[in-house]
């Protein structure tokens, strides 16, 4: 009888003990890559962050602050391909971060070529700044939910699409809609917001128009970050447009503000 109990015990141990285990992936050594991030906005001088990626599995990666992996003393400049003017960036401090700043304001409709060199390496990228759209009108609906007493409103933003493209529109810089097949038609974006409980409520609405590489990068970055702890998620690969590195050299244009006043 004791033998039978022992057998059952061994069997249960095997069954219960073989569910989850850490394994070592036999993957090649990771070589750090330069990471560029810059989104050009019309009417403003450009700015750009430059850093290095790290191995995902090393202990050193636990510090995720930007400064630890910054690339300093790089030569950074962009060329306006419409005017052939070159703007050389200056390394500067922005709060606790080091960012590269240009001086010349970005212009809608112009294309820009980025050139970065550091430690004998060269990175390049190109982007075109989209044209702005104009909001036609904004409708809003009060929803049933509240947040700390503050009302929740859904805003429906209507604007006329631009000819040409493709264009990618967003209200929140995370969820973009494409105008593929809809060029020139009136489009609608929706967003719901929790607002303070002080009437009348004034809301300023604007629509961002991005180019494809910017829309793809920001959309996929957002999805990847949201699914970071989901073991069932398929991998979301964020593909940038930097030759020789990771990241984005993109552009977005914002519409003029449209003011909505919600009376009590």
């Amino acid at each position, binding site marked *: 009888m004791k033998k039978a109990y022992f057998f059952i015990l061994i*069997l249960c141990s*095997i*069954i219960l*003990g*073989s*569910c*989850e*285990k*850490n*394994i*070592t*992936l036999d*993957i*090649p050594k*990771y070589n750090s*890559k330069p*990471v560029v*991030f810059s989104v050009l906005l019309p009417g403003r001088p450009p700015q750009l*962050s430059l*850093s*290095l*990626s*790290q*191995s*995902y*599995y*090393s*202990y050193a*990666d*636990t510090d*995720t*602050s*930007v400064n630890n*992996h910054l690339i300093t003393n790089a030569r950074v400049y962009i060329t306006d391909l419409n005017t052939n003017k070159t703007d050389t960036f200056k390394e500067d401090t922005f*709060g606790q*971060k080091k*960012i590269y700043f240009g001086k010349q304001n970005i212009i809608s409709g112009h294309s820009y070529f980025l050139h970065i060199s550091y430690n004998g390496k060269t990175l390049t990228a190109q982007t075109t700044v989209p044209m702005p759209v104009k909001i036609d009108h904004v409708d809003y609906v009060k929803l049933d939910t509240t947040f700390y007493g503050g009302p929740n409103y859904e805003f429906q933003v209507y604007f006329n699409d631009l000819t040409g493209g493709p264009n990618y529109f967003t209200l929140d810089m995370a969820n973009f809609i*494409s105008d*593929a097949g809809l060029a020139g038609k009136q489009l609608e974006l929706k967003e719901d917001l929790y607002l303070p409980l002080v009437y009348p409520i004034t809301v300023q609405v604007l629509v961002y128009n991005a180019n494809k590489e910017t829309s793809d990068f920001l959309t*996929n*970055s957002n*999805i*990847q*970050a*949201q*699914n*970071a*702890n989901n*073991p*069932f*998620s*398929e*991998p*979301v*690969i*964020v*593909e940038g447009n930097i030759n020789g590195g*990771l*990241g*984005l050299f993109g552009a977005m244009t914002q519409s003029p503000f449209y003011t909505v006043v919600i009376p009590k």
Partner: protein
Amino acid sequence: MKQLILTLFVFFMITGVVSAQKYTISGYVKDASTGEVLIGASLYVPKLKLGAVTNAYGFYSLTLNTDSIGLVIRAMGYKAVYKKIDLKKDIDLNVNLQTLELGEVVIVGSKASENVEKPQMGVIDVPITSVKELPAIFGEKDLFKVLQLLPGVQAGAEGSAGFYVRGGGADENLILLDEAVIYNPFHMAGFFSIFNGDAIKSVDLYKGGFPAQYGGRLSSIIDISMKDGNAESFHGEGGIGLISSRLMLEGPIVKNKATFMVSARRTYLDLLIKPFLPQGTSAAYYFYDLNAKVNYIISEKDRVYLSGYMGADVLSTSLTNPGDTTGVGVSWGNKSATARWNHVFSPKLFANTTFIYDDYNFSINEQMNALQAKITSGINDVGGKIDFDWFPSPLNHVKFGGIYTYSQFIPSLVEGQIGNTGFANEQVKYVHNAAVYVNDEYTYSEKWSFNIGLRAPYFDYKQTDYFDVEPRFTAKYSLNKTTSLKASYVMMYQNIHLLSNSSISLPTDIWIPSSNIVKPEQSQQVSAGIFRNFLENAFETSAEIYYKKSNNVIEYQPGTDIFFNPNIDNALYFGQGWSYGLELFVKKNVGKFTGWLGYTLSWANLQFAQLNNGAAFPATYDRRHDFSVTGIYNFNKNWSFSGVFIYETGSSLTVPLGTYIIPGNGPGGSTQLLDYGSMNFYKLPPYNRLDIGIKYTRQHKKYEDEWRFDVYNAYSRQNPYFVFINPNYQDPNSNISRAAAVQISIFPIIPTFSYNFKF
């Protein structure tokens, strides 16, 4: 190209017809003990070296010009019958074959088996006895788990009944149950298939060389026929297992005229856990299957069949406290119904007319106090088809016909109520699907025979039409009586597509039709092989090579919400795939020891402009080596032993290699992103497993019963079910949080007792 195929086709037809002869022998071949018609039984005239094969309804026709012949009739697992016939007029000849006794070997004449003789390749007649005899997880005998052991068929995740054929995706397999399409053939998130072995008569797997009567999927056809029911006497069989029990009853309604078969299976995990649940809580999960079939022989020329299947998985939980009621119910399942009418117009012309209804439905019901919501997804078809078998001469077997299906796709339907206010959001897509086909199996000479077909599918959805032409061609050249060489070319189109949330089969996967954005998927496959039998067909062997190219294959943008997305077509990527490989198969059919050995060496690649920087990458199910061996040893009438061993290269995985930070996520904030390596570049550890089973059978006066002891994964190998990266793994040695790969294995060694009986 199309004209050339048409010309060849007409040439072969005319060649056959002009040599058409005087008298025809026709009829049905049946199992003598049950009266079940036998599919694929062969009739052979050694003197003329000509023969015929029974169709899906057991009917054959053989037209000859001689007045005295010997006819050998045989089928796998049955004693061959020799009949001497004086052919002076058309003859109706129904033949009953006796089953072979255990270990009995019968020399079945000089003709090689179908696998060598027929101008058909990439086809496996799946042995149903193996489904019942081989060891299985929890003792649940599963048709699809046996399919996975055949060369060219790759298994899905650990323990899953899902499969991939010759590098094709999971949605590229057409599964037909008595001609009705089964859209989700799985229970329990893919661990078991819905097919209850007790109710199944035959299964044919087509991996290539598709005859023209089949279409609609790129990679495989699994044609399953339910038992007709015993025409001689009342019988039953059933079993009691660890997680489910089952019962099948069959018999004559009117002896030799009308029969029935009903079969049921249900799991009872829900009943076992019920007593252990806290008060106010309920939780249940179960699945069930019901199969039923009735057939009635109206006359020698007319026969009707009615068959149906209904099965579902049901999962529910609820919590009731004073003033607070929450509950969730999830169910998914298939229903199918088929009505068929066989009519023999003449000894040379047989027709089958079928009306088909099938339905796949998935629903979630949620209640949270005043909120009630229901989410539904599914697809249902109503259609009809007509198939003719025409035997103009002993050299030609022509099949032609057409099919029409009206389908209703519901990617997601959300409806509900909050208090007294209702809401609904419905997306329904209505689709017309049709096809006509013609196929000729033509014997040119003793050495050469051909299978030539043409299928023309038509698809219509929302003013978008697709009309395509699919040529099919297989040639066979016999080197000698036991060896043949074969080659085939097929083109296939697929107009419905599965979007899957994950690599495991879940009911939340949705089917979508082709549209103006989603073009039909298309594949072309060429294959060649050598087929040889040894020792009077006791051993069947084959070696096949194939290359398959697919266009318009679909992936969706990572992270896309496929379930609630009304514009899902815009979130899809379209690319191409190609796969190639070598398949070796050795099968022992007769004797005390039976079984087979299969090996596949294969590659499966995909390429999308938007993924992996546009570079090609291996498919998730790209497995270089896949080896399996099965064996059943019948020691005597009481004891038998069985075993399965599988070894396969691990599946492919995309894993992050690096990480980087970009500014964002609010002023002064940052976002951590992952730098993945090339898509699916990492291979998981190899999968291997040994299952063993022992069966003790007792014969009683009125019934027979058996005790089975199966051990699944006998050496408790921790095979990966899936691997994921835990970004916050707490290293016990350094106490530092870091990313680490975690492997989930779900099935260690699982011993199971089960009891089966039949009477």
